[in-house]
């Protein structure tokens, strides 16, 4: 994805992770900023379904030629689904970080944690100039 883009319907964690909340489920991924900083992603190995995520803690790694980055959980919960398509070709993380590049889906444990996340404008502001 060539242009910086932060959809309004998502919640953002300051460490460049996003969450799309739908009832008691949340889909998680990394933001445009994160994939841009990493460069072309070469490897992503999702954690197993059933794994417990703790807010602010790393739950997986995204690997590019340049660097490996922790992916932090914006919310706590249990993984109900992972994006297996990324295993063969993780390119979607760069091309469509909010769509085909989703990483895991969780059942939210603590709905109140959403208060601590940022909306698109607040998150963009943290990225500065």
């Amino acid at each position: 994805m060539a242009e910086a883009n932060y959809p309004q319907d998502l919640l953002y964690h300051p460490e460049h992770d996003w969450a799309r909340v739908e009832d008691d489920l949340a889909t998680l991924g990394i933001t445009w900023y994160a994939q841009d900083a990493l460069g072309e992603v070469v490897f992503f190995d999702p954690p197993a379904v059933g794994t417990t995520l703790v807010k602010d803690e790393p739950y997986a790694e995204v690997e590019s030629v340049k660097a490996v980055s922790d992916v932090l959980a914006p919310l706590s919960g249990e993984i109900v689904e992972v994006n297996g398509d990324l295993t063969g070709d993780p390119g979607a993380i760069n091309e469509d970080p909010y769509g085909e590049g989703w990483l895991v889906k969780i059942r939210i444990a603590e709905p109140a944690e959403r208060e601590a996340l940022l909306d698109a404008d607040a998150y963009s502001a943290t990225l500065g100039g």
Partner: protein
Amino acid sequence: MSSTTTSELPLQRERARTIFEKGAPGRRAFVCPERDVPQVSGEALPERFRRRDPPRLPEVSEPEIVRHYVGLSKRNFDLDSGFYPLGSCTMKHNPRLHERVAALPGHARLHPLQDPERAQGALELMWNLQQALAEISGLPHVSLQPSAGSHGELAGVLLTRAYHEARGEHRHKVLAPDTSHGTNPATVTMAGLEVVKVATNPDGGVDLDDLRAKADADVACLMLTNPNTLGLFDPNIEEIAQIVHGVGATLYYDGANLNAVMGLSRPGDMGFDIVHFNLHKSFTQPHGGGGPGSGPIAVSDRIAPFLPRPLVARKDDGVFDLDFGRAGSESKSIGRLRGFQGNYGCFVRSYAYICSLGGDGLRDASEAAVLNANYLLARLQEQDIGEYLPLAYGELCLHEFVLSGGPMKKQLGIKTLDLAKRLLDFGFHPPTVYFPLLVEEALMVEPTETETRETLDAFAAAIAEILREAADEGPEIAQNAPYTTPVRRLDEVGAAKNPVIRQAF
């Protein structure tokens, strides 16, 4: 000069074929000595332990082997052939005397488990080298055991841990500046501790306020190199030592940049407790394409009891020995870091270097290294270059300096990477790129003392030419460089996505 021709050069036309793709069934080089003892029965090695199919090694004749590997050598740039200003690598001339002495059978064919009484030459050499390193560093106790710089660092952190544990303390943190070499944090994690970064101040040195805030009783050690990776000597080093020692922590010196200060300043005198050396940097052990290296360490009195074993000792009668620390009471040593006693072949070469130069010669080498770096810096800050590649910190430097390619990128549209690739067409190895991370589009340059002024001038001229080319003819030339190397830019992403790391059969 350089060329942007698109017609292929001979080395480019030659398609890479591995040794496994050469030869033919039945060809051979090795002639096995004849069996001069009785044939063994099947019992000697039961069938179930035997290999069924031999490993699929090549089948080639000796001339084929020579032609293949000599051919490969021609697809390699090297220090003997050209300028190699890699920052923090100290690519100085590798004297061939060192290869000659290392090849003497008395050194080369000496078995590591030969009895010490019959290896007195080797032990004396190691002892003398230890003494020399102690004098250069200002710390009296030396172990030659670690295999390379990062191995020496691991030793240093393990030593620090052992030192604190012996005092009944369990400290968990190691402080390291945010300009530190990548090895440092990895080493710390392996030793079971945690890295805490210390900020750099606007002058490029350690931010003292940040250090004071972070230095507490849970800090085991501060790991520093001085001069640092920006090529700057921290003027506050004495105060840094006080702060660190004040909370009972140790001060560790990464010797990667020792080439700037030999005979001029000693880490022991700066207050460091543990110093590691890279024999493959300041002491001319050839880099060999990435290794071997050797990373001896020197420590203060309070750290000495924990040094790895064996150590070289000299008995009262002048006879040398290996001290394994087993005699008598419990040894406090951290133990072994590797087999036998270290990379002796590297000791021989470094010792020959120190014998050749002597104390004054080592100091002259550091002075020349610093002179060359400042001269090259001055040339690269001249009008047609300095505006695009400004010095990141300070005004003078020691043995290396860091430029920022930020303005070049903004104004000319070429990145440090592109500059580096275009330099290949001019016959130079580029400087270190994108390190330290603190500097945008970093270019770290270390010419070393063994380069002539003419070489430095030619390098500056090449940089000026590349910048002019970008300004006048556009960024595409550098962006698509190199053109004249055996292969051009390679697909590193593809290599990481679908790793092919061995020949398929």
